[in-house]
């Protein structure tokens, strides 16, 4: 139908006129037979300068004779071998993507080539900017001293920085891509690394500053402070998680060292063994010079293990704190009261008329009884105690005094049974 043909023709013409992609039709000698306005714009030539001219001659000054010749050779191959070709050209500082495909007639014979030209400068620039930004972030991440990684919802690594790679394995971060913890580490190590991942992904809530002790590839132990946060896509859907682990091994060691340097016991506030030995030694030297005798009480709390096992460690800790309170109430300001460790306590007092061993022990037991009488506990606090006397005429060390008091306590315990 003539009407239909004319409609089709008008339709194609208006499409050609309005699309942003340039199109050209070349015959088998690569002479330009037809083109649209966008092609004019992209190539920078007027239509009358192009139509009827060989493409190669037209592009010669634009691409250089080598470039134009190479393109022509490619297009001849499209004609001969009937395949589609994609090629990038630079025309007037714009990056043009050229796609060529064979133009066939109604008998399926190749009669020419159709070119579609697209100005992809902006896309290329955006890609380059994106690549640059990725590179910057990658460099930043890789040079962080912290261990950084990202996993998808299936626990497969998407990213791992160099520090992380060095910590756990010799494999480069690129090699862990797509692998889970279980693919990389022994099951027990993997389980610890993956712990908490499902919760973060399910709840969308981060896990912040979890301390964990891990064994590295080289077998050394490291303390890590780990934060895991959900990773969301642009629509807010959780697509995985990111983890940052800060190595706090040095800090832990420093804390440990400080604890070792400390003279007091964290739980009770009494002197610790180290504090007691140092101060008691000083006190004994003083006593010797002043020709004054001193008393050392040594005791341990009974049944701490039972309390711990029955009521839990917090209850055991409370019991120890209470014994410490009783000991402080019983002692004078000038006495040295200490928790030597675990359930062992010691008091060193300069002897005075009102503080013989017997009176001190009696006062201690009375105070303990008063605490027990309150009845706000399921169990009674009991304390075994022994004593030793320091004679300035026959001086001995604190350690010796502790030994003597210990054996005196032992005898007292034997007596109890």
């Amino acid at each position, binding site marked *: 139908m003539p009407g239909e043909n004319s409609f089709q023709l008008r339709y194609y013409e208006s499409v050609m006129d309005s699309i942003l992609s340039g199109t050209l039709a070349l*015959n*088998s*000698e690569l*002479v330009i*037979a037809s083109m649209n306005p966008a092609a004019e714009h992209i190539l920078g030539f007027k239509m009358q300068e192009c139509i*009827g001219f*060989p493409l190669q001659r037209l592009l010669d000054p634009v691409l250089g004779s080598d470039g134009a010749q190479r393109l022509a050779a490619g297009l001849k191959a499209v004609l001969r071998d009937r395949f589609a070709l994609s090629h990038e050209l630079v025309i007037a500082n714009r990056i043009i993507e050229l796609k060529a495909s064979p*133009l066939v007639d109604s008998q399926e014979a190749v*009669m*020419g080539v159709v070119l579609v030209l697209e100005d992809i400068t902006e896309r290329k620039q955006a890609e380059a900017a994106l690549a640059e930004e990725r590179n910057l972030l990658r460099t930043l991440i890789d040079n962080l001293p912290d261990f950084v990684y990202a996993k998808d919802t299936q626990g497969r690594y998407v990213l791992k920085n160099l520090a992380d790679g060095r910590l756990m394995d010799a494999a480069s971060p690129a090699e862990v891509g797509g692998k889970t913890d279980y693919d990389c580490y022994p099951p027990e190590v993997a389980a610890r690394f993956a712990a908490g991942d499902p919760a973060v992904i399910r709840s969308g809530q981060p896990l912040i500053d979890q301390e964990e002790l891990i064994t590295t590839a080289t077998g050394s132990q490291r303390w890590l402070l780990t934060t895991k946060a959900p990773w969301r896509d642009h629509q807010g859907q959780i697509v995985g998680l990111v983890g940052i682990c800060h190595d706090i091994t040095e800090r832990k060691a420093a804390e440990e060292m400080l604890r070792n340097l400390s003279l007091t016991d964290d739980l009770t506030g009494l002197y610790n063994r180290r504090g007691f030995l140092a101060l008691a030694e000083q006190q004994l030297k003083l006593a010797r010079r002043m020709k004054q005798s001193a008393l050392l009480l040594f005791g341990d709390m009974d049944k701490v293990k039972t309390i711990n096992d029955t009521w839990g460690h917090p209850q055991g800790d409370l019991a120890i704190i209470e014994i410490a309170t009783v000991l402080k109430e019983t002692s004078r300001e000038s006495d040295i009261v200490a928790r030597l460790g675990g359930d062992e306590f010691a008091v060193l007092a300069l002897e005075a008329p009102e503080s013989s061993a017997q009176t001190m022990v009696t006062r201690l037991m009375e105070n303990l009884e008063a605490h027990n009488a309150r009845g706000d506990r399921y169990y009674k606090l009991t304390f075994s105690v022994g004593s030793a006397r320091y004679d300035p005429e026959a001086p001995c060390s604190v350690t010796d005094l502790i030994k003597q008091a210990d054996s005196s306590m032992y005898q007292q315990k034997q007596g109890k049974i």
Partner: protein
Amino acid sequence: MPKRILIVDDEQELLDVIQLILNGNGYETLTAYGGAECLNVLAQQTVDLVILDIMMPEVDGWEVLRQLKSQGKADAIPVMLLTAKAQPIDRMLGLKVFGVREYVTKPFNVNDLVEKVAQILG
């Protein structure tokens, strides 16, 4: 005064055959062996019609048409393309882009050719 026709082809045999036919029909003929020779002839002589082949080495038929167009002679000299190229895209190039009067494909029918020549030359 007989009409003068320039026949351009890179096949001597074909030149001879067409010359024979046209002379027999009362036309005066000139021949050019290839595109460059064609342009030379046209620079020196006036003709009433050019019968032009397309696929010729060096200067092909398209180049001849481009030259004529750029010299402003295209409208003054009627051209008939006589070519083995039968594709629609080439027909379109010849008839629409270069405005040739006839597009005849080889192999051609002698009567047909004579008839078309007669039509052009009135």
